[in-house]
């Protein structure tokens, strides 16, 4: 074993590591840490990207006051979307892991393929499907389902597009691969034989799910929930393209604050608050995942 390392000393491995580390430190750690002093600065004028450091802690109280409710709403919408995505993904992951057999790699690959199309292109697809004169609404009208769905709140004023459910649905759609892939990896480790053992012990499907599958899938579940919740909370595209004017989320507000109002210090404060919230969620809410469950090809 040591034979291979004899010719490849520490210098070479540091040489290989250094450029990547420089990228990560210079373009991720540095700018992210830089947000902290920036969040305590003051802009040099309205719509000016320039600023000076004054230790202005009020940025935080202003941001919390302004954006607190929207922050909560974003977390709620993200939670709802992730729950919906889990409902969609878990049975699919079970199917792939336990019934996929030799088709498993193909079935897993099929989950990812739609995401090779740019997300904004998919938005055109959704807009086409959900449009007022589009096929889905026509189908619902034909089936006489418009009124019941309106009562349930899934349609708003007879529309599918520009509604909150459309935003939640779009976010859930995006989260599906993040959940399915790590779940398949973990569930595969559970193995079909364990399910057969449960069945031999007279456990019905519900008991098997609750007592065997679900507990054993927790590492993949934690990894999947983390990976899907993060992009969901900060999403910009779905609220903008599928939602109405009242469906904007924290990502849209932050984009407006940076690019339209050009208030870098307050944007930095809001970003720090958002990151702190996410870190809390990831550290305390979803721990138990391991890196082996990351869905990588």
């Amino acid at each position: 074993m040591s034979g291979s390392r004899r010719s490849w000393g520490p210098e070479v491995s540091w040489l290989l590591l250094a450029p990547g580390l420089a990228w990560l430190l210079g373009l991720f750690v540095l700018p992210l840490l830089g947000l902290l002093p920036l969040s305590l600065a003051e802009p040099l004028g309205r719509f000016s990207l320039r600023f000076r450091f004054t230790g202005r802690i009020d940025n935080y109280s202003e941001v919390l006051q302004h954006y607190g409710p929207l922050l909560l709403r974003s977390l709620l919408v993200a939670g709802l979307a992730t729950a919906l995505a889990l409902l969609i993904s878990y049975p699919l992951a079970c199917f792939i892991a336990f019934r996929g057999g030799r088709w498993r790699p193909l079935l897993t690959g099929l989950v990812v393929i739609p995401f090779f199309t740019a997300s904004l292109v998919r938005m055109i697809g959704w807009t086409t499907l959900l449009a007022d004169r589009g096929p889905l609404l026509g189908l619902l009208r034909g089936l006489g389902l418009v009124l019941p769905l309106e009562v349930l709140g899934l349609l708003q004023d007879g529309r599918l597009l520009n509604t909150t459910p459309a935003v939640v649905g779009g976010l859930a759609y995006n989260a599906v691969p993040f959940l399915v892939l790590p779940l398949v990896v973990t569930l595969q480790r559970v193995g079909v034989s364990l399910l057969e053992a449960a069945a031999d012990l007279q456990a019905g499907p519900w008991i098997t799910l609750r007592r065997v599958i679900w507990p054993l899938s927790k590492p993949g579940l934690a990894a999947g929930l983390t990976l899907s919740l993060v992009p969901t909370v900060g999403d910009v595209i779905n609220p903008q393209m599928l939602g109405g004017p009242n469906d904007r989320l924290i990502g849209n507000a932050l984009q407006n604050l940076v690019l339209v109002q050009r208030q870098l210090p307050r944007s930095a404060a809001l970003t720090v608050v958002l990151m702190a919230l996410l870190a809390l969620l990831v550290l305390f809410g979803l721990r138990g995942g391991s890196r082996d469950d990351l869905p990588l090809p």
Partner: protein
Amino acid sequence: MSGSHRRAIPWLALWAVAVYALLFAPILVIVLFSFNAPQGRFNLLWQGFTLANWLHPLAVPELVQAFVSSLRLALAAAALATVLGGGMALALARRRRRGDGWIELLLVLPLTSPEIVLGTALLSLFVQANVPMGFGTLLLSHSLFCLSYAALTLQARLSGFDWSLEEAAEDLGASPLQTFLRVTLPRLAPGLLAALLLSFSLSFDDYVVTLFTGGATLTFPLYIAGSFQREIPPQIHVLSTLVLALSLALLALSLRRGPGAPGAQEAPENPPPLR
């Protein structure tokens, strides 16, 4: 096996079919509507079949320009990220040292921050450093968010990599560089292709970070975001269908197991030891 367990199967299969239908619905619409002859500026309502869009895929100059700049950016960012990330993955795989945990943590961290956060942070950095924003800053930011995916993809392929072939090559007198070029690199090719493909599609897809750090650069996603206000020409659908077909072909190529890449896709049939 008891009957109740069997009965759960058709339901699971039906559910799977439904989910796949849902996942592919917006994509199939795009492919279908590349053959539509829209009336008016928005290709959102089915009017009739035509091949005209496919015969004139480059008919909208602004779209072509945005598409080409996205292609250039994604190719450059994917290549850069794969080289940087590949170097990291190789180094981490060949030395197994205590204390490398922080490097792995550093690699995972970018995956846990939303794009909007990364965009704000990078914009602030570039503004403070007085860097004019354009293709250069886009290349930096895109290669950064692709780097983690590229490195982790290759690292996953490298775990369980059998280094004895490298040792044999060196025992036979090959220099480390020769060994790398003639032995390691060919065996890594499928993994490298996967990393490139993943990075390319991440970069090609990106909207938020590009909006924040691209200055006035117009990329394909930025063009589409604006198209909802101006016009949605069917050429968007044609070009997207082409990209999809190309990525499918490359995906098939990268899924083909490379020689000596054990269990590249078929994840743990024999699970790794518990930690």
